C-alpha cells in the first residue's frame, strides 16, 4: 500500500470514526405539505368539494428520507436549489415544524436564525428589541445584559440603541438582528442565507466571526446558503438536497462542485430524463474523467510530478480541461491551470506535469474539470464534469530537507528585511 493511499484512507477514517459527540441527529425525516388546489377556504367550496368527492388539496412531499449527523464543532453546510426543501429541513431542525416521520435529536442549546429579526417590533427601541429577541432565543435578562455591550459593538449601532426600530434603516435592523444571533451564546447556530448582509466592513466582521467559530471546537454551525464560496471557505462538511433527498453528502468541495453542476444540469435535464447512474461529477455527456498518476505518488519533491488525464467526450464543440492543485493538509487551491483547450474528441489520455520543488512537505490532490464555452460570455467557461475523490489523484511530497509548516519552501520564497 502506498503512502498516498494511506493518506486518503486516513481522511476517510477520520470522517467515519468521528469521536466528537453528535449534537444533532436527523433520522429518516420526511415531511409533506397539503397544498389547496381550489379555493377551499369558504364553507361553500368546502361543501361543494365534499359532495363531488374532491379532496381540495394535493399532497406534496417536501422531504423524503433525510438522515444525517452533525458532530460538535462541525461547520455544516446545507445546499440545494430553490424549492429543494432546505428551509423546511431547517425549520424541522429548529423544531418549528413537526416531521411526519423520523426524529430530530438536538443536544445543547440551538439558536435558530431562520429569518432576520425574529419578534422585532418597530415600535420598540433597539435596546428593548435586543432583550425581546434574546428572550425568544431563550436568554434571561441577566444573560442578555452580560452580552449586550458585545452585541451593540458588533452591530456598530452604539448611538442608535435608544431609537425606535422603525427609524432604523433596513441594513441597520439586519445588522442588529444578526449581532444578537451570533453573539447569543448558543451551542448550535442555525443560519439561513445571511451572509450577504450589511456593508463591506460588516461582512468582513462576519467573515472573521465565522473563521473564529470554525476554530472553536465547542460551537456547531449549520449554514444554509447558495454561496459555494462560503461553503468551501467555512464548512467542513456539507449535504446537497434535491427534491427532498440528500443526493450528495460529506466532503464540502465535492458537494459544492456537484451543486454548481446541478444548477447547470437543469437546462439539459428536461431533454433527457434518465436515471443518474454516473458517479459524482460525471454524466452522460462526460462518462469518464480521471487523473492517473505517472510519477511515484510519494514524490521526493525534486522531480516534477507527472500525471495523465483520461477523458471521454464525443461532442463536436471546443472544450477545455482545467486542473487544480489542492493542498489537502492546509486547505486551499495552490495553483490552477485555467481552461486548457483540448483538440481530440473521444476517449483520450493527455499528459501533464507540475514542478513540486518549490513546496515543503505536504499532501496534494489533483482535481480536473471538463469545461465548455459559456454561450453568453466568451471569457468564461462552464464546468460540465469534474473528478470526485475516486477519480482525482492524490500525492504527497516528502523530503528530509523540507520543512513542514509553510507550503512554500525557503528555496522558493523568502522574506527580506529592507
Amino acid at each position: 500500500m502506498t503512502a498516498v493511499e494511506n493518506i486518503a484512507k486516513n481522511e476517510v477514517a477520520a470522517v467515519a470514526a468521528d469521536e466528537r459527540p453528535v449534537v444533532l441527529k436527523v433520522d429518516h425525516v420526511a415531511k409533506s405539505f397539503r397544498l389547496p388546489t381550489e379555493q377551499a377556504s369558504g364553507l361553500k367550496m368546502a361543501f361543494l368539494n365534499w359532495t363531488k368527492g374532491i379532496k381540495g388539496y394535493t399532497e406534496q412531499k417536501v422531504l423524503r428520507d433525510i438522515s444525517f449527523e452533525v458532530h460538535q464543532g462541525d461547520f455544516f453546510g446545507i445546499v440545494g436549489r430553490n424549492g429543494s426543501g432546505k428551509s423546511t429541513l431547517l425549520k424541522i431542525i429548529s423544531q418549528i415544524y413537526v416531521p411526519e416521520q423520523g426524529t430530530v435529536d438536538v443536544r445543547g442549546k440551538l439558536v435558530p436564525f431562520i429569518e432576520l429579526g425574529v419578534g422585532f417590533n418597530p415600535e420598540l427601541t433597539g435596546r428593548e428589541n435586543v432583550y425581546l429577541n434574546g428572550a425568544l432565543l431563550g436568554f434571561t435578562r441577566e444573560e442578555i445584559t452580560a452580552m449586550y455591550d458585545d452585541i451593540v459593538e458588533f452591530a456598530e449601532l452604539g448611538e442608535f440603541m435608544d431609537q425606535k426600530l422603525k427609524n432604523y434603516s433596513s441594513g441597520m435592523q439586519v445588522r442588529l438582528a444578526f449581532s444578537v444571533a451570533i453573539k447569543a451564546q448558543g451551542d448550535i447556530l442555525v443560519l439561513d442565507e445571511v451572509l450577504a448582509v450589511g456593508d463591506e466592513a460588516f461582512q468582513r466582521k462576519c467573515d472573521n466571526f465565522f473563521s473564529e467559530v470554525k476554530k472553536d471546537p465547542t460551537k456547531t454551525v449549520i449554514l444554509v446558503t447558495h454561496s459555494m464560496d462560503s461553503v468551501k471557505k467555512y464548512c467542513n462538511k456539507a449535504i446537497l438536497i434535491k427534491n427532498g433527498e440528500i443526493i450528495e453528502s460529506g466532503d464540502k468541495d465535492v458537494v459544492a462542485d456537484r451543486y454548481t453542476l446541478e444548477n447547470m444540469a437543469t437546462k439539459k435535464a428536461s431533454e433527457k430524463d434518465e436515471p443518474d447512474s454516473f458517479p459524482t461529477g460525471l454524466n452522460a455527456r462526460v462518462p469518464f474523467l480521471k487523473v492517473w498518476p505517472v510519477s511515484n505518488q510519494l514524490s521526493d519533491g525534486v522531480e516534477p510530478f507527472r500525471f495523465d488525464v483520461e477523458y471521454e467526450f464525443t461532442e463536436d464543440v471546443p472544450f477545455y480541461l482545467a486542473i487544480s492543485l489542492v493542498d489537502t493538509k492546509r486547505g486551499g487551491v495552490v495553483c490552477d491551470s485555467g481552461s486548457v483547450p483540448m483538440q481530440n474528441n473521444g476517449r483520450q489520455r493527455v499528459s501533464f506535469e507540475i514542478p513540486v520543488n518549490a513546496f515543503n512537505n505536504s499532501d496534494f490532490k489533483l482535481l480536473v474539470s471538463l469545461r465548455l464555452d459559456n454561450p453568453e460570455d466568451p471569457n468564461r467557461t462552464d464546468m460540465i464534469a469534474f473528478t470526485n475523490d475516486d477519480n482525482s489523484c492524490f500525492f504527497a511530497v516528502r523530503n528530509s530537507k523540507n520543512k513542514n509548516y509553510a507550503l512554500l519552501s525557503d528555496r522558493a520564497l523568502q522574506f527580506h528585511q529592507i
Partner: protein
Amino acid sequence: MKKAWDNLRNRYHYSVVVFKELVKTDFQLRYQGSFLGVLWSVLKPLMLFAVMYVVFVRFLKFSDGTPSFAISLLCGTCLWSFFNESTSMGMSSIVNRGDLLRKIHFPNYIIVASTTMGAMISLAINLVVVIVFGFFAHAHYTWHVLLVPLNILQLYAIALGVALILATLYVYFRDVAHIWEVILQAMFYATPIIYPITMIAQRAPELAWVEKLLMMVPTTQAIMDVRHNLISPEDVPTIWTLVNNPLLCLLPYVASVVILWIGVHVFRKHSAKFAEVL
C-alpha cells in the same frame, strides 16, 4: 423534593422568561403613541361607567335601591371588560404573532397566556380604582375581601380556557371572530351588570327561574362572587343566596375548571401544527 423543584424550574425556565418579556412588551405597546398612556387603563372604565350610570341607572331606573349599586356597576364593568378583552385579544393573539411562530420554536401557549395576563394587569389597576372609589360610594369592606383573589383566579381560569379554545379555532376559521363578537354582546346582556339580578323577579315574578339559570353561568357566578365579597356582602346576591341546592351551586365552579381543561387540551393537541397552517 428539591430535585423535583429544580426539574420543574429547568423545564419552565424558558417559558417564564419569554412570558415575562412578552407581557412587558404588550403592556409597553398597548398605549404606544397616546398622550395619557397607562392612565387610559383607569380612565376608560370610568368613562364607560359614567355612560352606563347615566343611561341605565338615572334614565331607565335600573337599580335595586341599595346604596352600593353604583360602585357595584363600576366593579362589574371592570370585570366584564377584562373578560371581553382577554378572550377577544387572546383569540387573535396566535394569528397576530404568526410571524414569530413561523420563525422560532417556543411553547406557543405563552402567547395566549401573556395576552390574557396583559388584560389581567389592566384589571388590577382598575380594581385599585374601584376600591378607592368604594370608600366614598358606600362599599362595605369586610373580611370577605380576602376571598376576592380566589374569585378573580377563577375568572382568569375561565377567560384563559375560552381564549385557548378560541385561539385554536381562529387559526383554522377566521369566522370565529365575528361569531364571538355577537356571543360576547349577548353574554353582556345576560350578565347582571347594568341591571341588578333581582330586577328580573321584581318585574316579572313568573320568570324568577331565569335569575337562577343566569347565575349558573360561570362568568356570571364569578363576577357576582367578586362583587359580593369586595363591595358589599349584604347588597350583592350570589349563587349561594339565590340557588338553594348546594350541588347546583357547585356546578359553575366545576364548569370553570372543565373549561380551562378543555382549552388546554384542545390547544395542546393542535398547537404543533400552528406554524404550518398560518
